[in-house]
């Protein structure tokens, strides 16, 4: 089975799932998966990846993560991710030192969305931001970017 983001729950049905299939985000016979509670509640990167059924992603330079070296405020850290990997199907974003590292997953309809996303996250402390890309042919690739979180302002 090569489908990387097949998830066990099959709750998201109806029009949305039909639209998802039409868009190529999910394949026939496989409803668009539900919000992965197990992965989101994992306290370590390893656990989260296990729940996401991602095994041993290989390092790559083809994922470009643009984020500040030092964040002005850990409450709002702007990140832009661009995948240059052909057949990029989805991106998982993990903030390794957060209490719950798994922050988000993004799915891109093949041919209809570029493998790019901009988002803003909360970071409790200095940490690596890890991105794992899944491709349509079932490969996993990963890259990291460190963001330092410092104290700003008067601290009173």
């Amino acid at each position, binding site marked *: 089975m090569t489908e990387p983001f097949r998830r066990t729950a099959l709750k998201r049905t109806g029009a949305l799932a039909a639209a998802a299939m039409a868009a190529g985000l999910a394949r026939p016979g496989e409803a668009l998966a539900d919000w992965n509670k197990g992965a989101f509640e994992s306290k370590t990167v390893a656990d989260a990846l296990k729940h996401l059924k991602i095994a041993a992603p290989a390092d790559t330079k083809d994922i470009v993560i643009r984020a500040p070296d030092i964040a002005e405020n850990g409450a709002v850290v702007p990140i832009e991710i661009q995948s240059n990997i052909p057949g990029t199907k989805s991106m998982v974003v993990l903030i390794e030192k957060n209490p719950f590292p798994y922050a988000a997953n993004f799915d891109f309809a093949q041919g209809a969305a570029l493998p790019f996303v901009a988002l803003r996250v909360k970071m409790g402390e200095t940490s690596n931001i890890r991105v794992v890309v899944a491709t349509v042919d079932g490969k996993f690739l990963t890259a990291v970017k460190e963001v330092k979180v410092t104290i700003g*302002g008067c601290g009173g």
Partner: protein
Amino acid sequence: MTRALALCAVAAFAAAIPALQAAAQSKPPVERDATTEEFEKFREVLEADNPAELFEVKGAELWKTPRGPKNASLAACDLGLGPGVVKGAYVQLPRYFADAGKVMDAERRIVYCMVTLQGFDEAALAKAPFSTETRTPDPVALTTFVAGQSRGMKIAPPQTEPQERAAYALGREIFFYRAGSYDFACASCHGEDGRRIRTQQLPNLTRADGAIRGYQGWPGYRMTGGVMHTLQWRLNDCFRQERFPEPQYLSDSLTALLTYLAVNAKGQVYKGPGIKR
């Protein structure tokens, strides 16, 4: 140790002071540091998509909706350019309003309109004037809307009325007035170029290029807490950090300081509601 002995010791020690002081007093040179440059790179990203816009939309809605005991909108509110004129009003405040007999900054004038036109109770509005994680007071959203209607315009507060000039003079005096447990004045942090508190750049508010940096970005979406704040809040929290007692919301002293700031920033372009640390 008795006081007398202490004094002797002090006298003996005092002779050694100048040398020690010379050793400890060299200030670091003013330079663009890497941290600041990194912040500024991403400031563009943050400013390009600023949640403050959500509050502008909210304020616009509040402005035109009939509300309050008098069930009136703010369409007749005169922000200094005539009833109902919002465009460009924010950058021409604070100014003197004969109807109120006072110099008023934007938020003060908006609240005045809410009270006189809509029948809101000023004391009630002043009770909890600042945003929290769960609540954005109406004057905050309204001020954000009004400020957004001056985006890209030059700061041009009038100094024609004697009251406006008096407000500037009072604001200047308060700005430099050192008091409180830490001997701080506004100028302690904002009277010199190129200094930082922690990683936060301190604009020199006594000069146009610095004053605009203080004026710019307010009303601001504050990343800490994710709330919208106006200059009334900014000054309130400055005085808290200054170890002063608390200034009253919309008081003359605050309008005076805002007049000092706006006049110092005169001629600079206002970019609209901003995003702050």
